[in-house]
């Protein structure tokens, strides 16, 4: 099973779970299998039309899926999928 790493800002939608096993042969199937387990997560990752939101990047291993096959990028059982959100943090 591919592993999906959930970034801190989205962990409140996954009961603070940092890493979730995903089913599916592609990025889209994997993310959806995780989002199905945590419906709140789904609306923070996908637009209403089903596209991945622009302020979130999805990586498989160290590569951006946008330079691979986008949401149809193939994943294997040992793939690590990262969801990378923009964070502004720092505080003053």
């Amino acid at each position, binding site marked *: 099973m591919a592993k999906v*790493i959930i*970034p*801190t*800002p989205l962990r*409140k939608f996954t009961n603070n779970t*940092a890493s979730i096993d995903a089913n599916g042969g592609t990025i889209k199937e994997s993310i959806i299998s995780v989002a199905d387990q945590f419906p709140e997560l789904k609306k*923070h990752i996908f*637009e209403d039309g089903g596209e991945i*939101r*622009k*302020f979130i*990047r999805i*990586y498989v291993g*160290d*590569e*951006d899926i*946008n*330079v691979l096959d986008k949401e149809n990028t193939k994943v294997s059982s040992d793939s690590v999928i*990262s969801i*990378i*959100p*923009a*964070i*502004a*943090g*720092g*505080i*003053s």
Partner: protein
Amino acid sequence: MNSTSFSKAELERYSRHLIIPEFNIKGQRRLKNAKVLVVGTGGLGSPLLLYLTAAGVGTIGILDFDVVDDSNLQRQVLFSVDDVGKPKVEAAQKRLKGLNPHVNLVVHNTMLTSENALDIIKDYDLVADGTDNFPTRYLVNDACVILGKPNVYASIFRFEGQVSVFNYKNGPHYRDLFPTPPPPGLVPSCAEGGVIGVLPGIIGSLQANEVLKILSGIGEPLSGRLFLFDALTFETRTLKVHKNPETPEIKELIDYDHFCGLNLNGESKDEEVKEITVEELKSLKDSNSDYQLIDVREEYEYEICNLEAELIPLGGILDNVEKVASDKKVIVHCRSGARSATAISQLEKKFGFDNLYNLRGGILAWADSIDTSMAKY
């Protein structure tokens, strides 16, 4: 360049740099000739400024508009108790001058804006971005792209940090990674989300190291890569960042509040909602009027201080609409008034409420004006 000379005191101070074979006096000379602007003197700016000053960067710009607050001291190690209430740039300058008198410190006691950014940044070789909000992130990025300056970037949230080097030798920049900011309210700011105090120390130090590498010309800067650190799991990842052919060319600075305030439906962030002051709320309380008070913060914030309001966190407000009264005045509050405005706006739009009032300034205003014994955070 070779004419840059060092005094005996400087040579002795920097000796641990000078004896590194690949750094040596050439690297030190490059540092001395360099001008770096540090935007933000907070959690990231503290280690950045301390290390860049200690290392002997010749000219360091210190930019911030804020004053030192008690709640800064948990992570902003640049400041002391005596600095509370003073302008951050002044406190920083005093501390840094004491650390290294050979460095030229330039103070910019201002907010970075679309009007002043190009004029300020043009005088520097490099910018280190230690800001805390999306509008300034995009502003710093765009100004650096227009002026052709490298932008050493770091960002933190709770236990997680990101570091990268943008716009270095025509490499990718922030918009290549994140073309648009998240809609307001989706990712909480640090003031709402919190941050573990040591994290900016770790991440800001990595940022300082990238600055020193670029200035001295050693090593491989983190350009085209994004470093991630999770302080809870101690997992680190380094991901590739590519130039995005779809990123529009940046020709001029724009209104970044507007850019970041628009959510994906094109709705404005700062929609007008009805307001009530803390003094008016106090009168309502004292007169035993019939009203409902709702707190849309998180439970852990409620535990720090509260107004004995009904707690319905913003994330669940629409799902708990049956708890919101429609037959009397409802006052909604949060920490500073931003989240409660969002809650009201959502409730008005989706359910047509017309009896909701935002507590202006939130519980912070209450602590300032009504109950000064209340803890602020």
